[in-house]
């Protein structure tokens, strides 16, 4: 399969089930909301080293609970308990501290974890709760859902945060590899992919700028390391290890995608791959572990042939 001169390899991406929460961070203006969201999703590239994977979802929400500008954040953790721990730390230190910011749950779910009900103690007894009960929410219509808010007094007024936030099973580790003929062309293609995926709802790209240069393989020659550099894709190692790189490939960048559902991840992969294909890009590949570890497999050719949407799981 060839798209715009780029070969789509007959391979698949292997993704995993993680717990996901979706928060909505509002502030007096979009810049302040972005500051808080960027801070709370910092150092959240990989579940292995960071405790959670988190990022800002591209499309902003059509409406917010308090009517102010806002951004959506997705955060992924191994378990609901670990996710709660990460959210309490991150919201407590990066959103509560950010000027004018508020933090709302944006994922209706049967399972919930504590957020504001833990952070409220910062109020030292002066915190107050407000409940949007089902009757009020029904009357308000639109996007208003029943919720309990905590209002925590802070020096610029009040920090408002949902008492609990919903947690669902999400999909983490959707990916594709961009194999380019020059470093510049590869980077340009990666940026096009990131821009295209930024328009897809329900997904994040947790790595810096959405681009990964240090793809990994499972295991290492060193006993203590569970993962090490993806040597088959390192251009400087092509002469000394079994390589996956054709002779004309000079650089590889990976796009990693986490999403609310497999369909969201598939849609993002399709949008990203289509944007990345073009002059200077020899191939599109994907990372997997032989299909034994991950719950979700995204086969590139069926995905792109179908025009997107459906995940081959």
């Amino acid at each position: 399969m060839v798209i715009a001169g780029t070969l789509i390899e007959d391979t698949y991406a292997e993704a995993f089930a993680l717990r996901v929460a979706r928060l909505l961070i509002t502030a007096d203006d979009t810049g302040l909301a972005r500051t808080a969201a960027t801070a709370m999703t910092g150092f959240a590239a990989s579940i292995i080293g960071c405790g959670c994977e988190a990022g800002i979802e591209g499309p902003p929400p059509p409406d917010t609970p308090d009517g102010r500008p806002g951004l959506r954040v997705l955060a992924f953790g191994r378990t609901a308990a670990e996710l709660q721990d990460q959210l309490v730390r991150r919201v407590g230190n990066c959103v509560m501290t950010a000027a004018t910011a508020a933090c709302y749950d944006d994922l209706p779910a049967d399972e919930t974890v504590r957020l504001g009900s833990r952070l409220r103690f910062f109020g030292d007894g002066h915190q107050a709760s407000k409940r949007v009960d089902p009757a009020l929410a029904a009357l308000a219509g639109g996007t208003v859902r029943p919720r309990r808010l905590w209002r925590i007094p802070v020096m610029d007024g009040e920090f408002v945060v949902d008492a609990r936030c919903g947690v669902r099973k999400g999909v983490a580790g959707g990916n594709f590899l961009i194999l380019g003929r020059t470093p510049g062309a590869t980077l340009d293609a990666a940026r096009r992919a990131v821009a295209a995926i930024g328009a897809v709802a329900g997904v994040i790209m947790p790595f810096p700028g959405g681009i990964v240069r240090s793809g990994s393989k499972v295991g290492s020659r060193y006993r203590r390391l569970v993962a090490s550099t993806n040597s088959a894709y390192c251009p400087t190692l092509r002469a000394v290890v079994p390589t996956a790189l054709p002779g004309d490939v000079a650089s590889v960048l990976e796009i990693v995608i986490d999403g609310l559902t497999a369909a969201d991840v598939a849609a993002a992969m399709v949008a990203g791959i289509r944007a990345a294909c073009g002059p200077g890009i020899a191939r599109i590949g994907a990372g997997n572990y032989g299909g034994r570890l991950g719950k979700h497999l995204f086969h590139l050719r069926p995905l792109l042939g179908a025009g997107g949407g459906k995940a081959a799981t």
Partner: protein
Amino acid sequence: MSLRLRWRSRPEAAASGLALDGAAITPDRLGGLSPLDATRLAALAAAAPAVTEPTAAGRDVATLGDLFAIDDDGDPAPDTITIEGDMRGVARLGAGMSRGRLRVRGGVGSRAGSSMSGGRLEIDGDAGTRAGEGMTGGVIVVRGAAGAMAAFRMRRGTVFIGGAAGAAAGAALIAGTLVLARAPGPGAAALMRRGTVVVLEPFVPGATFAAAGRTTAPWLKPWWDALGGAGVPLPAGVAGARFTRYSGDLAEGGHGEILILEEDS
């Protein structure tokens, strides 16, 4: 199916001066019933001990059909009941309701919606005393005026009073939200413990409330959306408006608040 209840004129009831206990008329009890079934239903809740019988039937239990002409008004929304007529002689309408919608196209007597825990009670006319007393959830919208002690000892939920509120509105509030379109009478929010009283007209609270500066309250947006959804006219720009905040009642710890809409906001 939704029911429409039209009040039959009961001159003998009016002459007695006694209030009818309307606590049995709730969506919880009437929801899903056909008009005929509703007609046969006992109008007076067996669980309501202090029933004052308004009809010539003495202590006999009246059926709802004795008091109202009941039909299906065609509204497809379930658990919706509309009452037409002057219900000012009927106490405790909607008391204890937990779901659905009860709309009264007229005034109501005392303690409407008392102890309600959910659902929506809309009163197009005036409410008597103690509307929403002790409620623990749901929404009461009074488009007209309210008698004394509206939302007395409310624990959760929302009460809106569109007209003048009588003395001691929001007195002994435990929590919840009371929105007053007009400046309330004396004793407003006296002895409130927690909760929020919002006043949309200039107003100076009593001496046991302390001024706590100006503030915005963007978290109130769901309340404005809900009141807008109920067709309540609200001041333009209220969602982003500034409020003067008072903490109180200081005699009860000062955890409650009165938010007064600023005129220039």
